[in-house]
C-alpha cells in the first residue's frame, strides 16, 4: 500500500496550517515505524510562513499520540510575545520527543492531552493531568523564572519534584517526565 501515514510536517519544528486540506491525512491506527518517522522527519520541514509568524500553525502528530492537540500558541495582539516564542519552542521540542520516543508513547494505557492556559500574569500554564499525578510547566515572561513540577498522590508515593525550566536543554527533562507518565498512567 502506497500511502503517507501523516500529513506532511511531522518534524519537531514543523507546523502545518490546520485549514490547509492539501495534505494526505492519516488513519488513527497507522503508527509509523521508526524508519518511516526518520524519513518524514528529514524530508519535510516547515517552520513558519513568509512573515516568520508561526502562531497560526498547528501540530500534526497522529491523533493516537497527539497529546499536543489542544496546544494554544497564544495570540499576537493579546499575549506576551516572549512567552509565545518560548511556548512554540516548548511544543516543538515536545513534538520531537514524542516522535523519537514512540515506543514509550505507545506504552501508555491512557493518553490525555496537555492543557494549555494563558493566565492573567502573562504566563502560560501547561498541565498534563492524570488520575494520580500531574506534570506542569509554567512559562513566564522572564524566561529564567519558568519552571516545571511533578506531583503525585498517595497512590504513587506522593512524589513532589520541581525545578527551573531550562529552555535550552528541555529534552532530558521531558524524556524523563514522559517516561514517568507512561510508567504510571
Amino acid at each position, binding site marked *: 500500500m502506497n500511502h503517507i501515514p501523516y500529513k506532511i510536517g511531522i518534524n519537531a519544528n514543523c507546523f502545518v496550517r490546520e485549514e490547509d486540506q492539501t495534505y494526505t491525512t492519516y488513519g488513527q491506527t497507522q503508527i509509523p515505524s521508526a524508519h518511516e518517522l526518520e524519513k518524514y522527519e528529514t524530508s519535510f520541514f516547515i517552520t513558519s510562513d513568509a512573515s516568520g509568524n508561526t502562531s497560526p500553525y498547528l501540530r500534526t502528530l497522529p491523533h493516537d499520540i497527539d497529546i499536543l492537540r489542544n496546544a494554544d500558541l497564544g495570540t499576537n495582539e493579546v499575549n506576551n510575545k516572549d512567552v509565545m516564542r518560548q511556548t512554540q519552542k516548548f511544543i516543538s521540542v515536545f513534538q520531537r520527543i514524542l516522535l523519537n520516543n514512540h515506543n514509550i508513547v505507545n506504552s501508555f494505557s491512557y493518553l490525555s492531552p496537555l492543557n494549555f492556559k494563558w493566565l492573567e*500574569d502573562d504566563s502560560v500554564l501547561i498541565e498534563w493531568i492524570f488520575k494520580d499525578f500531574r506534570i506542569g510547566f509554567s512559562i513566564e515572561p522572564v524566561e529564567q523564572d519558568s*519552571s516545571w513540577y511533578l506531583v503525585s498522590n498517595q497512590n504513587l508515593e506522593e512524589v513532589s519534584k520541581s525545578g527551573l525550566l531550562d529552555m535550552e536543554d528541555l529534552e532530558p527533562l521531558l524524556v524523563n517526565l514522559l517516561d514517568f507518565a507512561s510508567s504510571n498512567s
Partner: protein
Amino acid sequence: MTYPDEFLKGVPNDDKLDSDNIPTSDLFYFKESDNAPKRPDSKLEGSISWRDDLGADEILFNLKKDGTIQFQAGIAILCRRELDKVIQRPHVNDKLSYERDQKPENKYHGNLLLKSGTEKRIMKRIAATIATLCFKTFIKNPYI
C-alpha cells in the same frame, strides 16, 4: 476551631477543568486582589467553603456575583486530611494554612492562606499539590 473532613472550591467555568473534570492548578492560585483590603498578617487568601453540611454545597451553587451565578461550572470537593498533609510537605512548610471566615452571604466561607513573599514558582507548585492531593470529586452546578 474545628473543621469538617471536606472543603469546597467553587469552579467558575469549564476552563478550570480538564477533559475528565479534574481541576487545573490555577483554580488554586493565590493572587493579590486589587480591591480586597490587605490582611494584618499580609497573607494571600484563596476562598473556600467548609463542608459542615450539605447546605455548603447549596450556598455555593447559588452564590451570585453581579447578578449572575458565580460558579457556573460547579464545585470541587476536597479532602481536609490531605490538605493537612500538603501543609506538612517540606516545600510547603509554614507557607500554607487555613481558617474559617464567615461571610454574611456564606456562613461556611473560609480561606486557604499563603504566607506573603512566597515565590511565585513555589505558589504554583503548592497549588498543583493541592489540586493533585486534595481533590476528590466534582459536582456540576445543577442550577445552570
